[in-house]
């Protein structure tokens, strides 16, 4: 394990301390628990938006707490859900009477804990909580039947859900409408990733799997979950074509559609490469008659120091476009 760390047991606390030091104008913790992060800018009467999940994905999730996006976030140890109690503490802190929306990725542990938190918020605190589960990873499972719960994992595309719901709440919409917009963004976002190297969870100390020196794995999840295909590494354009082909076919995104694109680095992949990828995406989409309203390129949801990237597409209508384009100011994202 080649990392700039101290005792792995102190990793989470030390990392969080650094965040509060560097961004003390924007975020603070609640309940005396570093893992419970809330925005310093509380807007009375606004719907609160909370997220949470395991650490190891910065700037996801902590980095999006601030004006125009999220109000609170609860993180667990690396790749490990925080507890229901912690999520409840955040929920209580960010509620100002208009209720709270949970937006988080579709993972077992998170669901167990946040469902419990939502129940306690409702029963013990009289706070109405609604939930939207990010499940954008096309590679993780087939599409769900109508009315069925999705079994897909939530990955980088959740950024778009945060952004749109955050804007809606910031415009003082009520909980039903904020949820409606989050649901709409969620229903229109699709992602696929590719990984070139594994990553090491500090408390484990070694990689849980390996990828050959000349190999890549298309569809790998942001905790190293198995993808859909492992093979020899290919030229960037070919990789993009395969990933984008599956993404576009899934919703499907069609000629005449307008989209936002997120090119997301997983950790060790350079911005240079991400722009090389962006160039190809632009070409492919324009050939398909899909126009791009906005590009986001950079690290938005990482998997520790994994090399690789993901592509997310969000299909836009006028409402989503307005939400996406509105201002936001968080430790990691300014627009």
């Amino acid at each position, binding site marked *: 394990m080649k990392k700039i760390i101290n005792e792995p047991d102190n990793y989470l606390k030390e990392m969080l301390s650094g965040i509060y030091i560097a961004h003390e104008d924007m975020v603070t913790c609640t309940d005396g628990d570093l893992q419970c992060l809330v925005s310093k800018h509380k807007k009375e009467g606004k719907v609160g938006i909370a997220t949470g999940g395991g650490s190891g994905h910065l700037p996801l999730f902590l980095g999006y707490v601030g004006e125009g996006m999220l109000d609170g976030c609860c993180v*667990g*140890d690396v*790749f*490990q*859900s*925080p*507890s*229901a*109690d*912690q999520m409840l503490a955040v929920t209580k802190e960010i509620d100002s009477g208009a209720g709270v929306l949970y937006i988080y990725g579709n993972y*077992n*542990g998170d669901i*167990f*804990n946040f*469902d*419990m938190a939502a129940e306690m918020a409702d029963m013990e605190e009289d706070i109405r909580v609604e939930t939207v589960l990010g499940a954008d990873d096309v590679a*993780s499972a087939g599409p769900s039947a109508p009315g069925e719960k999705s079994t897909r994992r939530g990955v980088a595309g959740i950024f778009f859900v945060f952004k749109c719901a955050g804007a809606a709440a910031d415009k003082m919409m009520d909980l039903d409408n904020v949820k409606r917009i989050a649901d709409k963004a969620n229903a229109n976002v699709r992602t696929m990733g590719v990984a070139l190297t594994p990553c090491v*969870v500090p*408390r*484990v100390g*070694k990689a*849980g799997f390996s990828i050959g020196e000349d190999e890549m794995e298309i569809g790998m*999840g942001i*905790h*190293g*979950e*198995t993808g859909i295909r492992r093979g020899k590494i290919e030229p960037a354009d070919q990789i993009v074509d395969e990933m984008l082909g599956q993404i576009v076919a899934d919703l499907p995104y069609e000629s005449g559609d307008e989209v936002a694109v997120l090119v997301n680095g997983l950790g060790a992949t350079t911005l240079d490469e991400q722009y090389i990828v962006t160039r190809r995406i632009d070409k492919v989409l324009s050939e398909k008659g899909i126009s791009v309203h906005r590009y986001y390129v950079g690290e938005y949801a990482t998997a520790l120091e994994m090399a690789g990237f993901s592509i997310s597409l969000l299909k836009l209508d006028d409402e989503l476009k307005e939400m996406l384009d509105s201002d936001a100011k968080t430790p990691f994202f300014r627009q």
Partner: protein
Amino acid sequence: MTSFKNAEAGLIVDQLIKTIQEQRDYLSEIDGKIGDGDHGINMNKGFTMCEEKLSHMTYNLSEAFSTLGETLLDDIGGSMGPLYGMLFDEMAMACEDAEDIDAEVFGEMLVNAVEGIQEISPAKVGDKSMIDTLVPAKEAFIAAKEEGKEFVQCLEAMNDAAERGWQSTKDLVAKIGRASRLGERSRGVLDAGATSCYFIVTGIGKAAIGLLK
């Protein structure tokens, strides 16, 4: 004896904590094969936090289970926090009013534990999870009790079933949790949660037998 005193049985949890601490590396090693290698770390963290809390208390069995369950639920997170948290919480509640714990009370503790877990998790027997240890263990206990076996024998039946259930996970393909992403590749190794559940169930069982003898 057909029962043991709740007041004297707090040591069951003491022994459980020691067992998990001893098995920490083994549990992580098993999790490392088809999961992310942290199961022992997660379990050890929760049980050790509970040990610390208990060190400032005097406690009977239901209080110890309750402390353990709350610690796992409130402080650990992950999937294991809620699942095992629920298990111990239910076991605590099912015996909190009992001065003596007999086969009847113990049976209820097991039944409620399984129900509690199934309330939050959709996992079924055969999905390759802790459920593969827990459910057969509970059923074996209840069946033995209904056949009129003695408490000790019921516990022995439970322990045997837990072991068989645990071992059965080796040939299963994971349908739940991280390992389910591996599909066929998850076959051939034991499940980490089923393993910890084996140590927990039989740990309780053996300690209870000790108290009954």
